[in-house]
C-alpha cells in the first residue's frame, strides 16, 4: 500500500481528507463508470412479440376464412388469448373480451381491411392489453 505522507487537507475544525483516499474514490468512480458502460441492455420483451404475432394470426386467418361475424372472431380470440383482456372490432361493431375488473395497460393492436366476395369493404381491428 502506497501511503502518501502529509498529503492531507486540514480544515479549521480539524476535518481530514487524505489524498490517497480521494484517489481511491476516483478509482472507484472510474470502475463504476466502466462497468455501467459494458452492462448489456435487456432485450425487448418477447411476450409482446408473441402477442402481436397472435393478433396478426387472427387478422390473416379472418381474411382467408372471410370471417365477418363478431361471434366467430370472438371464439377464435378466446382460443388464442384465453385470459387476456382485449377487443375485437368488425366495421363499426366493437366488443371487449376478458376485460371484467381488469386494468387496461399497454395496448397492442393491429387492423386489416379487405374486400369480401360481395365487393364490400371489411375492416377488422384487434387489440390486446
Amino acid at each position, binding site marked *: 500500500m502506497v501511503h502518501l505522507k502529509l498529503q492531507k487537507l486540514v480544515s479549521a475544525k480539524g476535518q481530514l481528507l487524505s489524498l490517497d483516499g480521494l484517489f481511491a474514490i476516483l478509482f472507484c468512480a472510474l470502475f463504476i463508470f466502466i462497468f455501467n458502460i459494458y452492462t448489456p441492455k435487456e432485450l425487448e420483451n418477447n411476450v409482446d412479440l408473441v402477442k402481436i404475432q397472435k393478433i396478426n394470426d387472427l387478422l390473416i*386467418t379472418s381474411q382467408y*376464412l372471410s370471417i365477418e361475424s363478431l361471434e366467430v372472431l370472438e371464439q377464435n380470440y378466446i382460443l388464442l388469448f384465453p385470459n387476456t383482456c382485449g377487443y375485437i372490432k368488425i366495421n363499426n361493431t366493437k366488443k371487449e373480451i376478458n376485460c371484467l375488473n381488469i386494468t387496461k395497460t399497454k395496448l397492442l393492436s393491429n387492423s386489416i381491411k379487405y374486400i369480401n366476395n360481395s365487393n364490400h369493404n371489411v375492416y377488422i381491428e384487434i387489440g390486446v392489453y
Partner: protein
Amino acid sequence: MKGQIIIIDLLFFALTVILVIFLIINNLFEIKIDDKETKQNIKELEQILFAEKLVTDCNFLAYTPNNRKGLCYKNVLEIKLNSKIIKQLETENVCRIKIGNGVVYNINTNTKIKTTITRGVIENGAFKIAEISFC
C-alpha cells in the same frame, strides 16, 4: 497529532479499498446475471422466430399450391413432414407439434417440455390452434 492523522488516513484508505472491492465484485455478479438473462431471452426469441418460420415458410408447413412454387399462404398449413423438416425440428429441440386436437409430430422422450408457443392457423379449411413445444 501526526500519529492520529496516519491512523485516520489508514482507516479511510482501508474503508475505500473495501468499498472498491465490494463494487467490483457486485458489478461482476450483476454482469453475470444479465448475461444469463440475455442468453435466455435470445433462446426464447429464437424459438418464437422458429415457430413463425414453421407457419409461414414454404419449406416448412406453409401451404404451397401445386405448380406455384415460391407462393406460400401464411398461416395456412399443409402437413408435409419430410426428412429435411424433421431434421430441423430436431436441431431446434422441438418435441411436439399439435394442431387443433391432433398431434402431428411427437418425440417419445422423457424430456420435459420447457416452452410451448401457440399460433393461430388454418388447417383443412378451419381455424385451429397450433402448439409448438420445445424441450
